[in-house]
Every structure is written in C-alpha cells, then in structure tokens.
C-alpha cells in the first residue's frame, strides 16, 4: 500500500514540475486588492495567498487585509485563512477585492476529547460548546457567572453576589447526598465538574471544600481566568465524553481552551472597560417614630404580664427616652453599608505566529469593588503560550499561567453569609458622625479580611511522530496555589477583644500524562471514503500536596498591634475558644499528600465518517481509597450515525447535517479518605503516667470502601437545516450514581459510633434541548441579522437506594433553624422534613380538641399548656395525638433542585450595530425563605437592639405593611400574628422548620444586554493604524422576575435556603472598547 502512495506522489511531483515548466512561459501580472470579512467587512490580516496550481504560498495580506502578488496571468489564486472557507479566484484583473466567509463548520469543528483533538462529527458523547463570542463584553469577577444558562443541563446559580466567590454548579443534577453545616449555611457536598484548562486538569473549587466555611481564600480557578483570553469552552455531560478524565470526571467535565496566536502579523488586542456596580433596591424599613410606636405597642400589649412589659420598657431606654437626642433618630442603616462602585477591567493580548511557531501573551487586570463597603476582588493574570513545530514530526507546546486574586471579605463570614443583613440596627440609634461611631458599622468598614490566592500553572507538552500516524505524547503540568487569609477584628467590634487570624495554605498538583496515539486511515486523501481509526493509550500520574496552617489569637493589646502571630492557643485542649466538641470552629491544620495513577486507552473507529464507534477504558488508583480496593474501572462505549452522509441526502441541499448518538459508560469518583478507610488514633487520658493512645471510636475504618460510581446512558440527536438557519440538538440521559458514601450508625456493642459504607444511589434523568435559529440572514454587507438560541433542560433526581436497605434517613439540621432534611428512596435526594403549615387559625374555635383529654392541640409532648390559639400557624397533627412533635409530625416536602433550567440568547445586528440580550430561567424549585423567618423572628424581641437568641443579629423593623399577617379574629392571613413577644417562647410561630416559608423559586432573569458598535473604515483608524475598533455598553444582571417574596430567588444556597445575611447580587453597567492593532 505504502508503495502505491509513494509512486502516486512521485507521479504528482513529476506532473507538477512539468506544469511549472510550462507556466514559466506565461506572462506575469501584478494583482492588488483587499481581503475582507464577509460579516464584519473589515480587512483580514495574515490571509495566505497560494498559487492554486502549485499549492504554494506566494503572499500574505498585511494588517489591513491588503495584498499584492505577481502571478502568471491564467492561473488562479487560492485564499486561505483559518476559520474561513477557501476561496479561489482567476488571476485575470489587476485589482481583485474579495470577501471571505467564515467556514460553515458543522461537524468539522474540532473538539478536544480525552486530551485528543477530534472532529465534532465523530464524537459520540454529549458535548456542548460555548463560543468566545458568548462570553465577552462583561467584566465579571468569576467566569462562572457568564456560563449560566449557556449549556443545556448545566445548572449554575450565583448563590452569592460577593465578588470573586463561586456559585453553585452541577451538570445533569446533583449526585451527592451528604450535607454539612446547618440552617442557611448548610451545604451539600460538591457535585462540581472537573475543569480542564488548556489540557491541565484542575479542581473546580481550587481546593476549597464548600463545607469548610471558614478557612481558605475561597477563590476558585474560574475566578482567576480572564474571559477575554478564552477561545472556546466545551462541556462534556455524558459518561462517554467524561470517561477519559477518570475518577474526577463523574460530575462532567468543562474543557477550556485559551486563545492561540495564528496570525503572521502580530496582533495586539486591547480590551478596556469601566463598570459601575450598583446595589439592588433596598428593603423599605420602618424608622423613627414608626419603629418606636411598633416596639412600644408590642411590648405593652403582648408581654406575658404587665409588670414584665414595664421591666422591658424600663431597660429599653432607646425606646422610651424619645426626647433624648441620642435616641431620637431615624437612621437609614442599609444605606450606610451599601455603596456604588466604579471599577475597571483591562486586558491586553499580543499574539502572532504561524503553524510552525506561534505565541500568545495575555495580561489582565480587574478591579471589582463590592457593593458592601470594604469588600471586593482584584485580579491580575498573565497567560503566556508558545507553540513550536520545528518539523513535521515534532510539536512542542508550553504555557505559563500566573494569577493573583485579592479578595477583601470585609467583616468575614461564610460563602454566602458575608452580607450585612444582620448588622442593620434600630433606626432610633444615631448614625455615625464626627463624635460617634457605631460598632457594627465600624466592623464592616474597618475589620480586615484579606484573602490572597497566588496561582502559577505551567504546562509543557511534547508530541513526536515516531512513525507515520504514530505519535508519542508527553504532557506535564504543575499547578501551584498559595492561599492566605489574614483577618484582624478591631476590639470594639469583637467583645472588646481584638482578633487576629491567619490562614496559609500551599497546594501543589503535579500531573503527568504519557502515551501513544495512532491514527490510521485507508484513504488519507479523503477520510469520507475510508476506514479511519484512532487508537490512544496513556498513563496519567498525579501527585497532590497540601499544607495548611492556621493562627488564631484573641485579646491582643490594642487595635494597633496586629500580633503576635506565632503561637495559637486555640488549638490546645482546654482553652475556652474551642467549641463544645473540642474541634476548632475555624478549621484545623492539615498536611496531606495524595497520589493517583491511571491507565487509559481509547479506540475510535469510523467508516467514511458515517458510522462511528468509540470504546474507552480507564483504570484509576489512588492513595486515599480503601486498601482493599485501590483501583476503579471506567469503561465506556459510544456510537454515532451521521445519517446525512448517506448518498440519498447528497441531493437534499436543505439539510446541512444530521446525526444520532448513543453512549454508555461508567465513571467513578474517589470517595474514601484516609479517615474513613484507615481510621485514626486519638490520645486518651493517662494510664500508668503514660498517655494512652488508641483508635478513635467515632468512625470505624472501612478498608473495603470503593469509589462512588455512576453509569450513564445518553441518546442524542443533532440536525441543522437551511445552511444553519435552524439547528437542533437534543439529548436525553439516564444516570445512576451508586456506591455513594453514607454513614451507617452502629449499635453500641461495636464500640464504634459509625462506619462509612458504599450504600446510597441516586438516579438523574432528563432531557436537554438546544434550538438555534437565524430567522434573518442577509447576504448584503451590513444587512439585518438575527440569531436566536434557546436551550433548556428538564432534570429529575431520585434516590434509589440507602445503606442497609433502609427507606429513609434524616439529617438533623440543628440550630438556629432546625430545618431537618429527609432522604427517602423514591424521592428527590434532598427534601425538607418539616411541619406542614395549613394556614393560620382564624378563630380560637378552629383549634382542634383532643376528645379524650378535653384540651386543645398544643406544641410539645406531655401535659404542658402551650395550646394553640387564633393567629397561630395551623400545623398539621399528622399522627393525631394532639401534640406537635418533631418525631411524628414532620412531613417530607419540597425539592431544592430545579426541574427546569435554561437560557435564551438573542442577537440582532444591523450595519455597525449589534444588540445582544441574554437571559436565563429556572422553574420549579423550592426555596425556604429563611430570610423572612429571621426577620419575623426578630420582631419577637421588640425591647432589644440585638436579638438574644441563637439567630443573633440586630433587631430592625422592615416595613410590616408589606406583610400579610394575622391581626384580628377572622383574618385569613399568610403569616401568623407578628406581635408574639411572649408566645414566641411558648409555641414558636416563626419556627423555620415549617412549610410556611416554602416558596416556589422559579425565575426569569435578564442576565445581559449589550449594545455594540463596530467602527469601520474611519480615517482616524487608518491614521492610528487601528485594525479594528469596537465600542460596547453592557448592563449585566439587569432584572429578575419571580413570584418569590424574598429579594432574589437566585441568592439562596444550594439547598434552597435564603439568608438574611446574604450578599446581594449587584447590577453592573459597563462601557468599554476593544481595539486591535
């Protein structure tokens, strides 16, 4: 076979030479002209101009797209540029101006699957792509914000508006059952996908465990990556696509490729913008006399006894002493905490080169100040890339990425609860002035919480073609982070004790991948008429190291001495700052090393690119897994049928392409840790004057722990008609995650409290659809164009198994909210397990009576007197014993996971203008309005400035006229009587664990409106040697439409809980320009 090729090639060469000799006899002419883009009509620099006969490059266009060639008069010129369709022109005129149209890519687009570049038409899995055009024109603190609603089946919620913080993300539903934390700070274990940036696998969270609310700078890798530097984003949703990413791919994979240089003329691209962050509309508050009247009225009328009311009033001087100028105020506290900020975003990119050598350097800076004073995020990144191909066989690619993220958290707090909602005090207190300070406010303004993340990522890959079609590949990356967090709390804001807290973490990940790729085709000229085979095998080794240190000092000498910084008494037993269980609430030191080794292979075969088959296999072992089961196996299979490649479709020109896909695969996720698979030793009290060391009885080691696994079926359909006027992608999947780690509690004879076992299983299934249409396409320059794209996904999740065959397990949430969760086989993975509120008792006579005991329905068990009355919530007595009790009156309700999520994008362009409106939506999700809970609960302490219960925070009075509460017998109200000073302690009408707070969290959000203007052929541009110039104005986070009664149905935790102390999402207005030289 090879001989035939050689002969053929020799023949060709002879023929070409012959042809060339004839050509020499022709007359040469010089042709000049300009090559412009068919859509933007700007000149294209770096277009290769070839002699069509010789297939030899003879010139390239300059930076404005102009060219000049001399060629024999009867020959043809071939214009070729990456991303455009080739164009051939007869060389018969002295001036030839032509336009080049962007290539209709369809199935030829390339996709990087399992670190190997493939054409999209041969990929059997479910892959969604996001183009760089979809993520421009908005300076955001975290790239994640721009991905919301762009991929069907990828659910992103910006749960916090704090700049630089991450939101929640999952692809095809949650596949986790474990919850940590409590109340509105309860977090579900991460279902985050794996991130691959320029071929380097990276933890999505950047090593921050969401459950560890305190330590860490909480700046993930996506917050550090500038969107301007991104070429494309691919999202792998199904098992086949993700299987080659091994044990970290079970939740899906996001592959991000940054831009590369591909222009012979160096391109300098400037993108500068300034943006204004504005706080959302603030809540109306009762201030001054309205507040004073409310407080006085409540105390006088709703205390248990008159004398108690009088005691309360006597001690609450701020209420009664209304003539005192100090208390005679109506301060708008909310206004003092929020601010508007003006920020800037700058990106400079220099790129150039050709296929032999190309380079890129990208520098970015963003200043993003938060809408709460003293918070914000600054980032500096530099990304440098160099690709070399000294000859046909060797390819070398190197990259260096460096970033610094500086985050100010102000007064600190968790991932979402870092807002100021708890600090808005009584309006009767005087605001800050020259003579006065207010501790809560000063705490927000002056406490320091600086979080710095330094990230350096280097990457080097070498590819060498040993034999024809057989390439040896080697890629090594090292990703290094330093996270620091430095806090200093001023004494007056911290019980007259200063607090100094320091956290330092160093994390490094070495990843090396070595393998062989073999490409074989029976017809190298035309793969559409051949058997094509790709075989790839590789091994991947991964070493992660982590070192955390924490210092925590209290009670320093003064606000001006930020030290000492060495010894940390908090970590020694017996000191009062340790919490009840002896663990430090602010995290512990950690030092860990992790090793993983994987073997993987893939066989991808297609016949005439019509029938495609993918087979892959990957085995992953790591040092954390149980000693008895080190390796987990991830096989997968996929098929794809490009039916439009059948010859009968050749004549049907209106169909661009069509294909159907099916795949199946198993992914795994490491579940075991050193603690649950090996156990650990603890130090007990002395025995014979020696400290006794023995196993910790909390958790029994389980060396048989296996990885959590998931199998997934995917069926898909892609089609496009009328030259892309309408295209559709549909996917449906059935995914079962099994072996999910669960606690199994042991009987006390075993000495141990619990063991972790592989017991849970969750099924996710659903449908995803993307429809793109171009209702108006104009062939004319500057004609009206309209592109619209809608995507949506219906996703359902169901628990199918719990350990030891049980049907239900309950998560005890604890204070202050006690919103227990139920996991029940046959239901969605997370449900609230709370009281059913069936309205408010209108009259006393509506309260049910125990016919046997002759008394009313009451809270609590036993013979107390906490009977219900009119104005109380009507909680369902499920077991009919006339006692309201957790154990038998809780009911399962709600689903914090949305049923439908999606997005919608509209682009109109006409002449030099373009307008893009992009929206996202979510439907059917249960939100617990715990912010309202907290607000109403605080009303029960009208005599206090600070709420004295577990909930904490200041007591302020929001506009109560906006709340539909019970006032008089006969009222049909939504909320109970709000004046419960004494009865709150009796029956807790505002308890959070009731369905009263459950609301539907459906919303429609307008994420972005961008108006752009492209400058073309202006004289000043030529003078300034500007190749292109574009100006744009963007409004981001424009509006959210929802029936939810809280401020924002998106700013809630993954478990659907709102937070009175949440950080609101800012709306931003941007004006910027992009210039290219």
């Amino acid at each position, binding site marked *: 076979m090879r001989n035939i090729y050689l002969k053929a090639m020799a023949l060709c060469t002879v023929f070409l030479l012959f042809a060339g000799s004839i050509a020499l006899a022709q007359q040469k002419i010089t042709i000049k002209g300009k090559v412009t883009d068919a859509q933007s009509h700007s000149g294209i620099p770096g277009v290769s101009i070839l002699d069509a006969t010789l297939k030899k490059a003879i010139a390239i266009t300059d930076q404005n797209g102009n060219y000049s060639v001399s060629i024999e008069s009867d020959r043809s010129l071939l214009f070729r540029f990456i991303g455009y369709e080739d164009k051939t022109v007869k060389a018969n005129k002295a001036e030839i101006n032509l336009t080049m149209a962007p290539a209709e890519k369809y199935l030829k687009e390339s996709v990087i699957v399992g670190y190997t570049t493939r054409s999209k038409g041969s990929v059997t899995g479910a892959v969604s792509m996001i183009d760089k055009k979809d993520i421009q024109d908005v300076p955001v603190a975290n790239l994640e914000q721009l991905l919301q609603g762009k991929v069907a089946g990828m659910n992103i919620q910006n749960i916090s508006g704090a700049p630089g913080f991450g939101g929640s993300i999952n692809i095809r539903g949650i596949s986790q059952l474990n919850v940590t934390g409590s109340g509105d700070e309860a977090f579900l274990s991460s279902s985050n996908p794996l991130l691959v940036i320029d071929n380097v696998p990276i933890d999505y969270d950047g090593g921050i465990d969401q459950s560890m609310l305190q330590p860490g700078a909480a700046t993930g890798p996506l917050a550090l990556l500038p969107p301007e530097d991104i070429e494309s984003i691919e999202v792998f949703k199904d098992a086949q696509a993700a299987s080659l990413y091994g044990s970290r791919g079970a939740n899906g994979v996001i592959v991000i490729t940054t831009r590369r240089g591909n222009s012979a003329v160096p391109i300098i691209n400037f993108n500068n913008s300034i943006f204004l962050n504005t706080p959302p509309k603030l809540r109306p508050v009762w201030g001054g006399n309205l507040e004073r009247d409310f407080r006085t009225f409540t105390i006088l009328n709703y205390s248990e006894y008159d004398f108690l009311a009088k005691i309360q009033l006597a001690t609450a001087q701020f209420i009664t002493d209304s003539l005192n100028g100090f208390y005679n105020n109506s301060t708008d506290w909310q206004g003092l905490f929020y601010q508007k900020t003006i920020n800037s975003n700058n990106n400079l990119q220099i790129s150039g080169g050709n296929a032999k050598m190309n380079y890129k350097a990208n520098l970015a800076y963003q200043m993003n100040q938060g809408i709460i004073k003293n918070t914000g995020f600054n980032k500096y990144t530099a990304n440098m890339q160099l690709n070399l191909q000294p000859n046909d066989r060797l390819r070398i690619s190197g990259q260096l990425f460096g970033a610094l993220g500086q985050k100010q958290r102000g007064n600190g707090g968790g991932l979402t609860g870092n807002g100021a909602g708890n600090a808005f005090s009584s309006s009767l207190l005087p605001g800050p002035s020259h003579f006065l300070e207010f501790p809560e406010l000063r705490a927000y303004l002056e406490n320091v919480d600086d979080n710095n993340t330094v990230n350096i990522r280097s990457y080097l890959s070498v590819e060498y073609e040993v034999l024809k079609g057989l390439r040896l590949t080697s890629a090594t990356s090292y990703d290094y982070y330093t996270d620091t967090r430095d806090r200093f709390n001023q004494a007056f804001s911290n019980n007259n004790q200063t607090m100094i807290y320091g956290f330092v973490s160093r994390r490094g990940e070495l990843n090396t991948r070595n393998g062989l790729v073999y490409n074989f085709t029976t017809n190298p000229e035309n793969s559409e008429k051949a058997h094509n085979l790709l075989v790839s095998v590789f091994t991947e080794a991964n070493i992660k190291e982590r070192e955390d240190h924490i210092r925590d000092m209290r009670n320093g000498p003064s606000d001006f001495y930020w030290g000492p910084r060495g010894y940390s008494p908090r970590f020694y037993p017996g000191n009062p700052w340790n919490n009840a269980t002896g663990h430090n609430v602010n995290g512990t030191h950690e030092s860990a090393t992790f090793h993983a080794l994987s073997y993987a292979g893939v066989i991808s075969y297609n016949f005439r690119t019509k029938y495609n088959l993918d087979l892959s296999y990957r085995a992953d072992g790591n040092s954390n897994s149980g000693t008895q089961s080190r390796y987990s196996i991830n096989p997968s299979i996929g098929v794809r*049928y490009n*039916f439009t490649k*059948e*010859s*009968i479709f050749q004549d049907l020109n209106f169909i661009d392409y069509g294909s*159907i896909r*099916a795949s199946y695969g198993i992914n795994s996720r490491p579940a075991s840790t050193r603690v649950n698979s090996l156990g650990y030793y603890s130090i007990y009290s002395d025995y014979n004057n020696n400290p006794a060391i023995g196993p910790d009885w909390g958790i029994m080691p389980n060396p048989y722990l296996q990885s959590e696994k998931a199998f997934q079926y995917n*069926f898909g*359909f892609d089609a496009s008609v009328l030259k892309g006027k309408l295209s559709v992608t549909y996917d*449906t999947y*059935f995914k079962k995650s099994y072996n999910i780690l669960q606690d199994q509690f042991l009987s006390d004879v075993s000495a141990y409290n619990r063991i972790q076992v592989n017991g849970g299983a969750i*099924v996710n*299934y659903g*449908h995803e659809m993307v429809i793109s249409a171009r209702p108006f396409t104009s062939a004319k320059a500057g004609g009206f164009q309209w592109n619209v794209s809608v995507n949506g996904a219906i996703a*359902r999740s*169901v628990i*199918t*198994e719990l350990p030891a065959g*049980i*049907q*239900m397990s*309950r998560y005890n949430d604890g204070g202050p909210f006690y919103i227990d969760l139920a996991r*029940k*086989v*046959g*239901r969605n993975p997370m449900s609230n*397990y709370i009281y059913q509120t069936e309205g408010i008792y209108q009259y006393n*006579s509506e*309260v049910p*009576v*125990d*016919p*046997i*005991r*002759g*008394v*009313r329905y009451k809270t609590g*068990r*036993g*013979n107390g*007197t906490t*009977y219900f009355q009119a104005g109380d919530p009507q909680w369902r007595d*499920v*077991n*009919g*014993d006339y*006692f309201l009790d957790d*154990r*038998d*009156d*809780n*009911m399962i309700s709600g689903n914090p996971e949305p049923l439908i999520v999606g997005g919608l994008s509209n682009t109109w362009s006409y002449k030099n203008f373009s307008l893009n409106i992009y929206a996202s939506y979510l439907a059917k999700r249960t939100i617990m309005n715990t912010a309202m809970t907290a607000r109403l609960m605080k009303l029960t302490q009208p005599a206090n400035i600070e709420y004295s219960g577990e909930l904490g925070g200041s007591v302020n009075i929001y506009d109560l006229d906006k709340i539909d509460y019970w006032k008089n017998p006969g009222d049909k109200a939504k909320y109970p009587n709000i004046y419960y000073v004494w009865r709150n302690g009796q029956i807790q009408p505002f308890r959070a664990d009731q369905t009263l707070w459950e609301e539907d969290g459906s919303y429609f959000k307008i994420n972005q409106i961008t108006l752009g203007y492209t400058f073309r052929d202006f004289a000043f541009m030529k003078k300034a040697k500007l190749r292109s110039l574009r100006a744009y104005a963007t409004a981001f986070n424009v509006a959210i439409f929802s029936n939810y009664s809280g401020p924002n149905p998106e700013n809630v935790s993954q478990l659907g809980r709102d937070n009175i102390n949440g950080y609101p999402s800012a709306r931003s207005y941007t004006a910027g320009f992009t210039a290219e030289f």
Partner: protein
Amino acid sequence: MQTINSREWKRLFTAASLFTLLLGATGCYKNLLPEEKDHLSNNMNYTTETFIANLGKTNVFINVFNADYSTQPLEFTIENVRKGDKQPAPFLRDLVDTRQWKTWYNGTEKTIAEIEAKTFVQKRPILDIRPNSGEIIFWNVDSFKVPYDMYYFDVRVKNKGGERLFTNLTLDLRRPKPYDPYIYDDITGIQKPLNSGGVVKAHDVRNLRDYQQRVLTKDSVDVYFVKTGNAKNTVSFRFFNRDSTVIPLTVFDMQRWDSLYYYSPMADIRVKFGFNQRFDRDSTIVTYDIPNPFPVLTDVSGGLDMASLYFDYKRVNFGRQELGFVAVRFAILEPGEWTVAVKFRQTPKFEDD
C-alpha cells in the same frame, strides 16, 4: 444505483425506528426507579411497656410510642388481649359508653351543665388505642365489668412500608381510687402504712398554733374523705378539734367564700372551686356541687390536675396580726356525696392573744 438507494433507505429506516424506540423508552425512565415506600424505622418502640391503670377512672397514657420518624400515618391495632395464663380476655375489648369532649374545657364554665354540654358519649372498647399515635387508653369501668388483674396484649403497627408487632405489653389493672390522695394500696386494698400515705395530711398550713403557742405543722392536720351518699355529686368540708368537737367555719374570718379558686395546670387557668356553695344552718359545713371527676381533667391529666382549697383566717399573735391558713388538695373520682373532714391533732387557737 437503485439497489444502493433502497439499501440505504432500509438502513435509515432501521436507524430511525431504533432511535424512535429509544426515545420512546425514555418515557419509561420512571419505571426503572423504585417506588416510594413508607419508612418503618427499626428503632420504633413503646417507651412504656407496662400500663398501670385504675378502675373507676379514665386512664390515658400519652407520649408512650416513639415512631422514630417512620412515615406517618401509622396504624395501630390492639391484638391478642389475654390474661396471665394466656387465656383470652375478650371482655377488655367490649364497647362501653365513654365520655369525650366536643370542645375544650376551659375552666370558666358557670355550671356543671355547661361542662357536660361540652362532652358527648361514644362507645369505645374498654382497652382502647389511638389509631395513629399508639397511645393507650383504659376507659372508666368498674370491677363488675373487668376484674383487676394483670393483662397482656400486643400492638400491631402498620404503614404501607410494612408492619411490626409489639408483643407482651402489660396492663396492670388495679383497684379503683375513689379519691386522691388515697390511703389504701391499690394492689392489695390494705391501708398503707401511716408514715407513707396511710393517712392524708393537710396540703399546707401557715401560722397555725395551738394554745401552748406551739407551731403546728401540716403533719398535725389529718384529712378524712368520707362518702355519705349517692344522691348528688357534692363535696363538703368540716373541721374538728383534737377532741372531735366541731370547729365552726366562722373561724376562717379571712375566707372570701365567693371567690375561691384553684389553679388547673391542664386548663392553664385559675378555676373557681365547685358550684352552688352553701353552708349548713350552724355554719359548720360548707358544701359544693362538683362535676365528676373533680377537678374535671384530673383523670386524663394523670393526676396532675388537683383541686386545692385554702381556708384563711387571721388572728393577733402576741400583739402581731398574722394571716394563717389550712389548705387541702385533693381530687374526687368516685361520684357521690363526699365529706372532707379536717381533724387537728392539737386543738388550734383561732382567737386573738
């Protein structure tokens, strides 16, 4: 060419039908999932397994079952009621008239009839169980119906997820207590030892002195409950000196006879003591009409609700005016005319010094 085309059509058709089939199958995702079943916890249990009940009153055992978050509603049924010798005792499941409540007793009712109007009569099995919460009730019957003895029974708990049988629950049925505190042992029927409940003492006394100026404690005041007839439900109070001479009620000169209240923990209110208060001709006996049982919720509260009555007086003790009282606290379960006789072991001094 024709044959190629038809082969392709066939292939396309196969692919299309296969795809439609698979798509159709996606509608059946739900069928691949397990049905939601009710949860029946392994840790469900009766926290009390022996129920001590007395004849002659309604016995309610609340808060005895721990469902441990099993899916509600649970269904409870009593099975296999038997005596100690394993002989069945079906009479415990006989239906009897029981008094139940339509609206709650709030303690402010003006007449006995008003209280009675809040109740209704329903036939229930003597040994009863609340159908969804598992609370055990032994209704008010006398020993003609059921002899006092140890009985055993099983409770079956069911929901859609399965069922569990709690066996050998014990009903320890004892003699009736006509009044409370009762001086006779409800197992043996023998009077209790004098130092442990064999005689009822005053609930409280204050500033009670005898003629020798000795302070009399409440232990020196005996209280006797005597049933004097069956015509009506009444309670009368009489006071006797050490030598059993009658003390006239006029000595309680601070007693506000028209506003005597006791606190009912169940109704969470101070309830007016009795109805239709009347004195006999020489003011030695005070009599009240009472509902039965008295206080109204005493039996269903498990003895928590008791009536108390304070007899107040004042006297000058060596030139200093003192307020004193003698208090009794009791409940009456057996209907009839009851006399509460308060007898001082030392003759108290009510006159001024």
